[in-house]
C-alpha cells in the first residue's frame, strides 16, 4: 500500500533538523502551510534556510519563525512586510538573498523537471547578475540560473487525496505546485483530504508522485494582508 498519510504537521516535519533547506509555498500570506509553520515553531528547529517568495508578517507566516530566530537565511523576492525581519537583517542576524520572482518560480520548476539550470533575462545588467554567467540567444541576453536544491518542500493545497494528488484554489496556487515538485521530500497539508479516486484525474494540479507526505490540516486562519472591498451600489 502507498502510505503517504501522516497524522498531523508535527509528524510530517519530525525529521526536519537544524540547518535544513526548506521551500515554503505561498504568496504573501495566501496559500501558506500554516500548520507546518506552527509545527516548525513548536519543534524549535534552527538555522533554517527558507526559500519562499515572502517572509510573512510579524505575527504570521514565516514571521513566526523569524521571531523565534529559527531562520538563518531567507531566499525571497519580496520581504517588505515585517519589522522583526528588518531588525534582524540590519543587525546582521539574518542573511537575505533577494531574487526576481519569476526566477524564483522557474528555479523551483527546474528542480521539479530535472533541469539543472535555466536561462532568464530577469536581472541582466543589474546587481542580480553579479557573478552569474550571461549568455546571448537571438540577440537578447540571459542569465544562467540554477535549479534549487531543497531538503524539504512544504506546501498547502485545497484538496488532496491519499495518493498525494493535490488541487489548489484560486491564487493560493502560486508557488505551491512548483515547490511540491522541487523538494527532496515534499510535505503537503490540505484543507480536505479525500480517498484516492475522489478527485477528477483531469483536474489534478500536482500528481501524487511528487508528494511524499500528506495530512489534513486544522484550524486554518487564512489571514488576509489587505482586505480591500467595494460598497454595494
Amino acid at each position, binding site marked *: 500500500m502507498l502510505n503517504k498519510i501522516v497524522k498531523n504537521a508535527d509528524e510530517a516535519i519530525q525529521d526536519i533538523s537544524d540547518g535544513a533547506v526548506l521551500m515554503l509555498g505561498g504568496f504573501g*500570506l495566501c496559500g501558506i502551510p500554516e500548520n507546518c509553520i506552527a509545527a516548525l515553531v513548536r519543534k524549535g528547529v534552527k538555522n533554517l534556510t527558507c526559500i519562499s517568495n515572502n517572509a510573512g508578517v510579524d505575527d504570521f507566516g514565516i514571521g513566526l519563525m523569524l521571531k523565534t530566530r529559527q531562520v538563518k537565511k531567507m531566499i525571497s523576492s519580496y520581504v517588505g512586510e515585517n519589522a522583526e525581519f528588518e531588525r534582524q537583517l540590519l543587525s546582521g542576524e539574518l542573511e537575505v538573498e533577494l531574487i526576481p520572482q519569476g526566477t524564483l518560480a522557474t528555479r523551483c520548476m527546474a528542480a521539479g523537471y530535472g533541469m539543472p539550470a535555466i536561462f532568464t533575462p530577469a536581472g541582466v545588467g543589474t546587481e542580480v547578475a553579479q557573478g552569474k554567467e550571461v549568455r546571448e540567444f537571438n540577440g537578447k541576453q540571459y542569465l544562467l540560473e540554477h535549479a534549487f536544491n531543497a531538503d524539504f518542500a512544504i506546501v498547502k493545497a485545497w484538496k488532496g487525496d491519499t495518493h498525494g494528488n493535490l488541487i489548489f484554489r484560486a491564487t493560493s496556487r*502560486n508557488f505551491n505546485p512548483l515547490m511540491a515538485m522541487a523538494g527532496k521530500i515534499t510535505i503537503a497539508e490540505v484543507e480536505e483530504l479525500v480517498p484516492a479516486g475522489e478527485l477528477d484525474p483531469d483536474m489534478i494540479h500536482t500528481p501524487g508522485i511528487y508528494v511524499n507526505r500528506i495530512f489534513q490540516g486544522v484550524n486554518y486562519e487564512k489571514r488576509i494582508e489587505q482586505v480591500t472591498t467595494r460598497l454595494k451600489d
Partner: protein
Amino acid sequence: MLDKFGIAKRIAQELRDGYYVNLGIGIPTLVANYVPEGMEVILQSENGLLGIGPFPYADEVDADLINAGKQTVTTTKGSSFFDSAMSFGMIRSGRVDLTVLGAMEVADNGDIANWKIPGKMVKGMGGAMDLVASAKNIIVAMQHVNKAGESKLLAKCTLPITGLGCVEKVVTELGVFDITPEGFRCVEYAPGVTLDYIKEKTLGRLVIADDVKQMVIG
C-alpha cells in the same frame, strides 16, 4: 499639471481592445478604473490570475483570491488561475501586451530603477525585474521629480538598475515622453504646463516632438 488620477487616465488611452495588461502597484493600478467604455482589457496578476475583477463586496472577500499587491480581488468571466512559473512564462514569452510600472528613475535610453535605494531597507524586486526584462511594451507611470524636486528623468540612473533599455514611454504629471534614440521625446504636455518647465525639470536628453500637443484627458 496632472494628479495621479490624470496620469492613470492618460495611460488608459494606450489600452487597446483585447489587450492583456499587467499593472504594477500604485498609480498603475488606477489605470484599471479608466478602461474606455466598450473595450475589453484583461488584467494579469503575476501571482497567478488572468482576469482581475473589481474589489469584492464585503461578504465576498476570499483569502485565497488576491492580486500581486496582496489586496483581495474578484475574478471576471473568462478568468483563469495558474502557478507562478506559468505566470512569468507568459510574461517572458511576450504574451502580455502592455505593462505599466512605477519607477524611481528612468534614463533617456530606457533604463529603469525602481527597486532599491542604497542605505534604506531593501524590500526586494518582486516581479519587477522579470517584467522589465521581458515585457515588450512598458510604460512607466511616475512623478516627474522626487520629493527634493530633482528630476527622475535622467541621462543615467543613479539608483541600482532594475532593467536595461526596456522602457518605451513615460507618463508623468507634466507630459508624455517616448524613449527614442535621441532620448526622451516629449509628445504631449499636460494642461497648464509649459515646454520650458518640462525642459527645466528633465535632466536626461530631451527632444520636443514637432507635433507636440497638449494632452487631452477625459
